[in-house]
């Protein structure tokens, strides 16, 4: 990503594309979008990654989270007549000044988050994934799985307890 940002490196962009484009497409299709429409959005998103690269700050975001935001904003933009209301951007240097300590700290936290997610049971991971990757509300989850809402709530709670435990060290910061 930094090669894309700082050197406008097209080969590096192609590698970023190979990694993220299928994942963004998978996420969009998971929220109910058709394959062709999803590819159009993927293209918009990856072009935005190229054009907005100067704003990417590794001390504030992982590349995946940054791409996730661009993809969600684009997806919702297309669903709204007037576009999606977006927060103002924080004024930073472009490109943001490198802060090695903060970059390392964020990378470590992200690693712990991944580890905590990996330790969840498949059921718990599925519930969290639905909230962030699909666009299902409680009612829709109930419809799709045939489970009563109470079961879902307790599953979410179990997932939460487990996550809270796993993330305790992270949160002690």
């Amino acid at each position, binding site marked *: 990503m930094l090669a894309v940002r700082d050197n406008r490196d097209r080969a590096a962009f192609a590698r970023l594309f190979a990694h993220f484009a299928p994942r963004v497409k998978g996420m969009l299709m998971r929220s109910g979008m058709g394959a062709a429409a999803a590819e159009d959005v993927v293209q918009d998103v990856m072009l935005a990654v190229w054009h907005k690269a100067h704003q990417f700050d590794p001390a504030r975001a992982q590349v995946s989270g940054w791409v*996730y935001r661009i993809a969600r904003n684009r997806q919702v933009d297309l669903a709204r007549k007037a576009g999606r209301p977006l927060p103002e951007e924080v004024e930073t240097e472009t490109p943001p000044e490198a802060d090695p300590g903060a970059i390392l700290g964020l990378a470590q936290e992200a690693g712990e988050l991944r580890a905590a997610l990996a330790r969840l049971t498949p059921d718990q991971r599925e519930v969290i994934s639905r909230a962030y990757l699909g666009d299902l509300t409680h009612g829709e989850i109930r419809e799709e799985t045939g489970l009563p809402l109470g079961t879902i709530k307790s599953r979410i709670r179990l997932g939460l307890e487990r996550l809270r435990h796993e993330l305790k060290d992270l949160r002690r910061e």
Partner: protein
Amino acid sequence: MTKIAHHIPDEMLAAYAAGRLPATFEMIVAAHVSMCDACRAALETHEMLGGTLMETAAPAAPLEGDLLERTLAQLDAPVEADGAARTPPARMGIYPGPVAEALHHGPPRWRAAGGGVRQQILAEDGKSSVRLLYIPGGQAVPDHGHGGTELTMVLQGAFHDETGHFGPGDVEVADESLEHTPIADAGAACICLAATDARLRFRSLLPRLAQPFLRI
């Protein structure tokens, strides 16, 4: 500026990050995050979790054909003003960027709404609405309950009610259980952004998934 004391509930930030927050409440979230670093950080944390899940849990969908080549071919094309790389709007006086955009970057066109209160509706769809409210200093808004969920964010001045005191940037979340009488502080008029969805019950709509991530 006074310190922001009343924030967007974390479940709503998670829902905004994931693109599943009802349209009615998106402007309030975007406006508050524009003014509140704590909620911006929380939102970016949810995006980090979403990105991690996208990388690890979403099934990757193979691309059809030559999408990479077509994308590379467009890298040098001019950026569309309303495309995915658009620049979010800037603040306009007391109005945060997303509100300024809804006002088309001009001043509000106030209409009388009774009792000295004025309003401009920014968006309306059936039983949901987003509006600006102008409440003269010292003026009370009649006692009202809520069917559904109402979010009110102060942009100028302040108001207080049975639940607390709300100044610029503060957000009050009200649902059917709250009967209150907001009163604008004496002095400058209180200008608020209010979003209502009479059909929604906040508590039952949004999964309480993300609290552990709030204070990472």
